[in-house]
């Protein structure tokens, strides 16, 4: 449905998107994950014919975005990060305007507007001025605009940015329900978001695609590297010696005194192993109080670091076991 080949966008000397290639099958939900400034918005703007690319090609539903922009735009529903809305218009009037410029025939307009309002749960605000709506409602008006013409492709730039947790859940549910009949690309910088909504993830950093996989595989690859935090009552020295002997521990860093006689450690586990039971048994078995044991969430930055370094480490295999055997220590 969407095919992007070697897409590059330069602003003067700065390269915002650098040779990005990916494709999306019909009915698939693709997550576009990356930190701010990674080139997600630029890529999406090229796909929606808002910006021309410097190099490379992009095709949507078989139409080239440079050669046949009108055909592409007819098949795409798009919301930018801040939904473009007219604050002095009422919701229904705004959607009516959109239905006209989207070329929906006159007899279908009312029905399609009602459907979009229904799906995005805007019924109680349909006659309110957009300028008076909260951020969450505005986001939904943007979404209603995008799905109005029932396009083949939906491109959603950070659809949950700035929403409260309840609205985020609702929006994710809505997006999931739209998958299947629509092909969706959604961008985000939040990892759990792609885990729950997307069938496939493209991770982009500094304009380049650094990984492309299913969310399950990605989390699998990342799981082993997820560090654990252990908090136990006792002395740093003995606990350190105790924890480093637990099989599977490849890295251990004392994190200092957590107060009330409790010391904290960060533990790196072998890839793919959940060491929490072993660690708990070891600490309690040695007569210490186990106060806390948790998995440390990885920030996106760490994930990128992880992905980029593991990819390069694959080639340099001999070095990897050497570092794994000797626990890395680090004075806090």
């Amino acid at each position: 449905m969407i095919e992007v080949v070697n897409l590059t966008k330069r602003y003067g000397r700065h390269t915002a998107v650098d040779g990005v290639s990916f494709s999306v099958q019909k009915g698939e939900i693709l997550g576009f994950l990356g930190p701010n400034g990674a080139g997600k918005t630029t890529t999406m703007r090229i796909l929606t014919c808002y910006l021309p690319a410097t190099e490379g090609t992009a095709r949507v539903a078989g139409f080239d975005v440079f050669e046949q922009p009108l055909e592409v735009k007819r098949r795409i529903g798009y919301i930018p990060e801040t939904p473009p809305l007219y604050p002095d218009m009422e919701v229904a009037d705004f959607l009516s305007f959109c239905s006209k410029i989207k070329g929906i025939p006159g007899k279908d307009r009312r029905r399609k507007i009602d459907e979009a309002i229904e799906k995005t749960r805007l019924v109680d605000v349909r006659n309110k001025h957009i300028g008076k709506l909260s951020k969450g409602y505005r986001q939904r008006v943007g979404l209603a605009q995008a799905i109005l013409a029932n396009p083949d492709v939906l491109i959603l730039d950070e659809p949950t940015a700035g929403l409260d947790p309840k609205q985020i859940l609702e929006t994710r549910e809505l997006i999931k329900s739209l998958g299947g009949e629509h092909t969706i690309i959604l961008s985000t910088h939040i990892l759990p978001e792609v885990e729950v909504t997307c069938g496939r993830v493209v991770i982009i950093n500094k304009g380049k695609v650094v990984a492309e996989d299913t969310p399950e595989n990605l989390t699998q690859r990342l799981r082993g590297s997820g560090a654990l935090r252990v908090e136990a009552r006792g002395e740093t020295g003995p606990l350190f010696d105790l924890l480093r002997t637990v099989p599977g521990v490849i890295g251990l860093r004392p994190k200092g005194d957590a107060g009330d006689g409790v010391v904290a450690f960060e533990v790196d586990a072998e890839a793919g192993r959940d060491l929490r039971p072993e660690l708990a048994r070891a600490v309690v078995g040695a007569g210490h109080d186990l106060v806390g044991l948790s998995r440390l969430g990885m920030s996106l930055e760490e994930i990128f670091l992880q992905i980029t370094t593991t990819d390069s480490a694959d080639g340099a295999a001999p070095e990897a076991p050497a570092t794994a055997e000797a626990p890395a220590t680090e004075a806090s």
Partner: protein
Amino acid sequence: MSSLRNVSAIVEKEWRHYFGSPIAYVLLFVWTFLFGRFFQVAFEYFLLASARQGGMEMGMGPKMSLNEWVLRPLFQNMAVVALFVIPMLTMRLFAEEKRQGTIELLSTNPLTDWQVVLGKFFAATGLFGFMILVSLVNFVPLWVYATTPPDWKPVATGVLALLLYGASLIAVGTFISTLTRNQIVAGILSFCAFLALLTLGWADDPAAGPLQQAIAYLSVTAHMEDMTKGVLDLKDVVFYLSFSGFGLFLAQQSVESQRWRA
């Protein structure tokens, strides 16, 4: 067919904006008030002068022309008023879309830049035409109370002149609005540009060289002269239409190029 629908959708949206805010009502009030006032002043002066002439020459002198004494000064005064009014019609057309980010909505929907530019131009020109139409009420007493009603043709050509002249300024104002995201800046720049176009006419001098005459030819006000006297010359109509077309072309090029440079 679809392009017509797209243009009319933009026109409708712009009219919603004009009439959804005080701007349309304020401009309508100012315009019709000044139109009425200038008409009244010119007409009183005409009555006074014709009474004086009638008294002196017992009605034997050359007939005083209503066109010369009333319509011409009225339309020319309104042309000056338009210099102030039109920037307020055009300044937000594109500047506001850029500031709100809604230009992205227009550019990612199946619309061409030309359809957007034309829609906005017709919306502003339509409102300007509506303002002229409303102020025509002033002429009604002439037909109701005059013993021999005046000829309607000079009024029609005058209105056409004002409309064509307004359309030219609106085209230029639309272009200037594409250059900035600040509508105040767009308004001020448009006003300056209109003044510059007005002053071009002052270069008109039959004895001057070809360059100066060419510059004077570009003056938007000079081409109204004949029409406000009731003389319709195709040359002037073509001038205004091509002037508007050029302004709109610049606007379209500007909208398109900003995407390439963005």
